[in-house]
């Protein structure tokens, strides 16, 4: 007999303050505990006769996963236990609303969709980096936490009942012979039972962005396994077919997320976030120009080939796929030193060769005056910004990189070290490469940029120098 919950009741030291939600799967209460300050949320799964087995296992999964997750993109785990027969879990109550209500206002402007998508992708990158895959990404599980003083708005992922963690036994892996996920959002490989591919979350986020941007669901709301498998061979209408004023770059991004083959999607959530934040740098392919769904012949061909395709997709991912790092090379265009430039080229090339999925961001800082407005136009009337972009492209040319792998950024700041570190942080850069310059009088007075970047970088930082020359760090 499940425990009857009532306001004011004490459950293992937690006082029930108010019921928040009586969902199909669980009851949520606002609770308080003298040892745990802040607003808390208690989740109690509905147990007993007639409850779906996936719900009960889902709660067990959440109980195993939440304590091992950390960081600003998941609710902080507080405690869990069993009160008589009633299991419970307490976590931080995150302020804000999910993206669910936004669906009623869809279609939203492209910029808003991209901004929300970038926040969601950043949250997913944080989760994937911890070894977990959410596997139930949808608007109602993406909680938009408003900006607090001194901070920025961010998306917090909630409900880990279907999630997978690479270092934990998967209680859902083989227990149910039905696809586990939410019909409109589930990725094709997930329909086939693959539960360890982080790129499944990118597909689901793609569905979410599609819905927010067009007001329509790309694959409808199928329920049966046959209906879910349809997305393996039937492509969705291109977003621009529904909303012609939607920018091409957004169609490119959304359709890349919705690729059936995970290898054709973004390799990592960080790279998706990056594109959503830099629309002008999204390389447009045939996807951007699509005006209608594929013809019957193409669909029929895919339908006949579906068994081969299913087999290929159902093969479990052998390596953890979040290993497609973003490299950043900081280039000093002002003090060109051919030997140092060569050394930097070599280091970048070496780093890119060892990881085929890696992407390169070429960054330079354009100094601005500390006080006052800077004219963006120089005396000759040529845009200084564009000049630097051209110079960056020229710098990278000897590396002969595929244009899909490289982007260019000119940062305007009065403090180069701070700008580089801040850029690395917001773009989720995995590795910074920068050159060490020779000792100059100015440097001695101001301190070196590279030393500060190394000290403050949120990731690995490599200082490249020319062998044999005495140099400052």
């Amino acid at each position, binding site marked *: 007999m499940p425990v009857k919950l009532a306001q004011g009741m004490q459950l293992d030291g937690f006082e029930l303050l108010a019921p928040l939600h009586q969902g199909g799967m669980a009851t949520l209460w606002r609770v308080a505990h003298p040892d745990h300050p802040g607003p808390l949320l208690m989740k109690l799964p509905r147990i007993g006769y007639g409850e779906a087995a996936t719900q009960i296992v889902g709660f067990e999964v959440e109980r*195993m996963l939440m304590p091992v997750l950390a960081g600003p993109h998941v609710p902080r785990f507080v405690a869990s236990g069993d009160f008589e027969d009633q299991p419970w879990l307490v976590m931080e109550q995150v302020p804000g609303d999910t993206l669910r209500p936004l669906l009623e206002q869809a279609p939203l402007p492209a910029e808003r969709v991209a901004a929300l998508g970038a926040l969601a992708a950043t949250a997913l990158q944080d989760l994937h980096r911890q070894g977990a895959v959410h596997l139930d990404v949808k608007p109602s599980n993406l909680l938009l936490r408003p900006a607090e003083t001194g901070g920025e708005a961010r998306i917090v992922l909630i409900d880990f009942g279907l999630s997978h963690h690479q270092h934990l*036994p998967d*209680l859902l892996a083989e227990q149910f012979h039905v696809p586990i996920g939410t019909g409109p959002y589930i990725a094709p490989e997930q329909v086939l039972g693959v539960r360890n591919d982080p790129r499944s979350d990118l597909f689901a986020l793609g569905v979410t962005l599609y819905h927010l941007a067009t007001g329509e669901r790309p694959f409808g709301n199928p329920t049966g396994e046959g209906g879910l498998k349809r997305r393996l061979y039937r492509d969705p209408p291109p977003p621009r077919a529904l909303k012609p004023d939607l920018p091409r770059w957004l169609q490119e991004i959304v359709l890349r997320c919705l690729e059936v083959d995970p290898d054709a999607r973004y390799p990592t959530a960080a790279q998706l976030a990056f594109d959503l934040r830099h629309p002008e740098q999204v390389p447009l392919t045939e996807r951007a120009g699509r005006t209608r769904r594929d013809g019957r012949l193409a669909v029929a061909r895919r339908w006949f080939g579906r068994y081969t395709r299913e087999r290929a997709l159902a093969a479990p991912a052998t390596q953890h796929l979040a290993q497609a790092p973003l490299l950043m090379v900081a280039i000093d265009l002002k003090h060109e030193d051919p030997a140092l430039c060569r050394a930097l080229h070599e280091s970048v090339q070496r780093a890119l060769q060892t990881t085929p999925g890696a992407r390169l961001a070429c960054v330079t800082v354009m100094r601005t005056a500390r006080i006052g407005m800077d004219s963006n136009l120089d005396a000759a009337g040529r845009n200084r910004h564009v000049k630097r972009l051209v110079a960056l492209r020229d710098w990278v040319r000897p590396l002969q990189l595929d244009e899909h792998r490289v982007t260019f950024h000119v940062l305007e700041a009065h403090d180069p070290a701070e700008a580089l570190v801040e850029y690395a942080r917001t773009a989720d850069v995995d590795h910074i490469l920068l050159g060490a310059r020779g000792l100059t009088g100015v440097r001695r007075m101001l301190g070196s940029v590279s030393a500060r970047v190394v000290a403050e970088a949120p990731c690995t930082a490599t200082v490249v120098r020319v062998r044999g020359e005495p140099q400052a760090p």
Partner: protein
Amino acid sequence: MRIALLADLHANRDAVEACLRKLDKAGHDQLVLLGDLVGYGPDPSWVVDFAREAQASGAVVVRGNHDEAVATAAGERMHASARFGVDWTRAQLTEAQRAWLRELPLSVREEDRLYVHANAHAPASWGYVNSRLAATHSLAATDAWLTFCGHEHAPALYHGQAGQAACFTPQPGFAMPLAPARRWLAIPGACGQPRDGNPAAACALLDTRARSLTFLRVPYDHDAVAARILAAGLPAELARRLAGGQ
């Protein structure tokens, strides 16, 4: 409460000491030795004395097949090198030490935990939990929330579910919260004779309050132990296995 677990110590003093250093640093309230204190390794007397002292101060110690073979008649079903090792080991131990080994229980139940060397369904016949089927049998034979076994030398974590138990290869050093409504069978892996290709000694740490289990691997100087095995005149194969973790 934090419980430190060692299985298959196999008379390897260096491996035991290395694990204890790591476990002491992590902190623990109780020690559990899951059998096979002796056999294969060069230090049976030291390991038995250590286990006896640990038991006197509250540790749980269960009997393994090697302990039984050494304490009673030689195991007829053992490999030739193992049998030679049994005879050698018996000669190293005093009658008091052998008598103590003989008296060890086959399994010990404490609260919702069961400690047994081989398996829960037929502990005296020494069948390995080396498959999902075997784990299913063992889980069915007890109502303990968590069973700890040794005998099988590779670390593994099984959990009961509809149909056959599921198997998971744990990642060392990661504290796994174990669902309380599930039943689990954990094999910490061999401390003194690892056989999963990794020569580092294996052990585990259970936090009963957080219900989290951490598998650990501890590197130690296995070459020194291999040298002592050779010096003792034990089969060279036993020395080689330590370096390869086979």
